């Protein structure tokens, strides 16, 4: 890879985020045009999507159709654009995406306005968190991107996010929102991505709106649809997941970022966005279920343990067949409408609640037991002293009693001193 004044290659050898999976196929992420990029206002110049699969005759045909439609976009209705976006290979290339994504969510020309400057926004209460996350989004940029250009794009990203949450002050920024924003920004540029992100964040059916509430409760609830979907397709697998109590956390970043945070291949991310931009808001959860179903054998081969399964599932392999997974997810959605699943989700949540209650009780019992153990210990200590105490003047008796209590308190915090004397060999705590 030719890179000129870049900071991206330093970290390439290092596996991102403690990743245990084999190093991703970097080739697929490379810039495929050697041309030097300096015009940051035209994001299409940032061609880091893989060249589409020209060998495939269907895709070749689709490309021709797309181009024809883009010559006369006003004659094409939303449904036709959606068909392109959903069917095999999606919108194929970022050149098409840049024009079609805004159409999919109904962005109008008037909404394309100049963004404010970063300085105007820096007093916002979420500013620091957003900047912190944006600064850590290096992985999302094409390797080899010139430093100045990357920094300029990161500033645009910060502005984009802050603009949306300032426009809708009741929406709360979450870590992961920046992963959605950057995908839109890289494809559509800073002007179009603002109304696009607004549509996704605000409104009764806005897919990101549940993530931006005061708590993560609504998100958690929606993620709970995954297990019932899996269960209906493969009961044995669902039981395995349930038994390990792996929960849904492994899929949380997938859902919150529409997989942008978790996939190494840029082309996979934008392909999924093609679909999600015209799918029902809960559709990404069905994709999650489809991925888990696809990986059933790996799950069976894994130890039935929360940590092991969480670890296994949270790492997405680089070679997931997303076209098939999307087809599976679509079928799952058609066969298991969210409203159908509600009773199952409610039952699952009741069980979780019960488990939480049991945990709490167990904890209280343990604390109570610990307390009584230590009271009996201090009682024992007190029994050792009374004889001596009685012979002492009152003031000294008081002092000794206090010392006893102090000793008991000390022992309470350092039970190991009494119980594990012999093994007090390690570094002092």
């Amino acid at each position, binding site marked *: 890879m030719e890179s000129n004044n870049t900071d991206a290659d*330093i*970290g390439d050898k*290092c596996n*991102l*985020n*403690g*990743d*245990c*999976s084999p190093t991703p196929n970097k080739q697929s992420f490379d810039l495929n045009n050697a041309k030097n990029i300096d015009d940051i206002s035209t994001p299409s110049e940032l061609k880091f999507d893989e060249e589409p699969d020209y060998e495939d005759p269907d895709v070749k045909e689709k490309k021709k159709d797309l181009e024809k439609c883009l010559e006369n976009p006003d004659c094409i209705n939303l449904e036709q654009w959606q068909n392109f976006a959903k069917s095999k290979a999606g919108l194929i290339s970022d050149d098409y995406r840049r024009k079609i994504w805004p159409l999919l969510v109904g962005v109008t020309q008037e909404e394309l306005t100049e963004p404010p400057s970063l300085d105007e926004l820096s007093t916002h209460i979420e500013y620091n*968190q957003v900047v*912190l*996350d944006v600064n*850590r*989004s*290096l*992985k999302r940029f094409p390797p080899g991107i010139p430093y100045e250009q990357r920094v300029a794009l990161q500033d645009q990203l910060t502005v984009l996010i802050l603009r949306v949450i300032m426009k809708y002050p009741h929406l*709360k920024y*979450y*870590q*992961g929102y*920046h992963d959605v924003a950057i995908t839109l920004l890289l494809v559509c540029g800073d002007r179009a991505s603002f109304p696009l992100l607004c549509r996704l964040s605000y409104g009764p059916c806005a897919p990101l709106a549940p993530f931006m509430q*005061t*708590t*993560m*409760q609504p998100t*958690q609830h929606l993620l709970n649809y995954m297990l019932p979907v899996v269960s209906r397709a493969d009961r044995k697998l669902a039981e395995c997941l349930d038994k390990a*109590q792996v*929960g849904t*956390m492994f899929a*949380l*970043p997938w859902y*919150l*970022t529409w997989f942008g*945070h978790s996939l190494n291949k840029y082309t996979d991310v934008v392909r999924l966005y093609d679909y999600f931009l015209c799918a029902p808001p809960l559709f990404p959860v069905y994709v999650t279920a489809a991925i888990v179903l696809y990986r059933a054998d790996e799950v069976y081969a*894994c*130890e039935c*343990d929360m*940590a092991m399964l*969480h*670890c*296994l599932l*949270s*790492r997405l392999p680089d070679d997931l067949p997303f076209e098939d997974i999307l087809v599976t997810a679509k079928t799952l959605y058609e066969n298991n409408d969210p409203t159908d699943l509600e009773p199952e989700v409610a039952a699952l949540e009741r069980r979780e609640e019960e488990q*939480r209650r049991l*945990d709490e009780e167990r*904890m*209280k019992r*343990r*604390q109570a037991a*610990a307390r009584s153990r230590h009271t009996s210990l201090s009682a024992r200590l007190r029994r050792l002293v009374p004889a001596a105490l009685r012979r002492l003047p009152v003031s000294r008796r008081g002092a000794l009693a206090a010392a006893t209590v102090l000793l008991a308190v000390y022992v309470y*915090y350092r039970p*190991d001193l009494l119980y*594990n004397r*012999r*093994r007090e*060999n*390690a*570094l*002092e*705590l």
Partner: protein
Amino acid sequence: MSEATTHQIPGLKQKKVFKIIVLGDSGVGKTCLTYRFCEGQFLDKSEATIGVDFRERNIKIGHEDIKLQLWDTAGQERFRKSMVQHYYRNVHAVVIVYDVTKPETFHSIASWMQEVESHGLMRAPRVLVGNKCDCGTPESRLATTYAQRLADKYGMPLFETSALLDSECDNVESIFMTLAHKLYSKQPLRVVSVEGELGPGVVTLGRQKRSASSNDSCLCS
């Protein structure tokens, strides 16, 4: 909480597992610290943690292989309640991290302690870690004496370190090893003691080689 889980794989030697949860405000360096410990290097393209990440490393105490599981949590407030709760289950020890260059992250410790308490972990081994001591000037960093006072108040040892500096590698090592030893010494029914062959306080550290880890499930985030 002090009893470590043992893995029940028939035919395999059972291995002790210690679960350690890492808490602290966003950006203090939890991900970098756990990465440093598990992978032996600085993670220079760290990303925001969404939910909970998981890393692990095998260590040896005496002759015994022990698996340390580190749960690296998201620092952003909104992930804490309800979300991360699930992962407090069966936790054996707690690491609370602050950034020595950001006093506000130090002031959050009280609320992190509250959370620890609410999960019944006040008696679990805990350590306080001031990270990024490579940053700023001695004057701009939070004074050690100040931090030590708070650490004493909560009865936890204080470590000041940096996930960035290679020279601090041993220090990061000792944070987690301290906890591991503490947990090890707290275990009931232990017959073998470390004093045996190597003498007290001698610890054999073995960093798991990445290449060798392929069949040992995985080390990951």
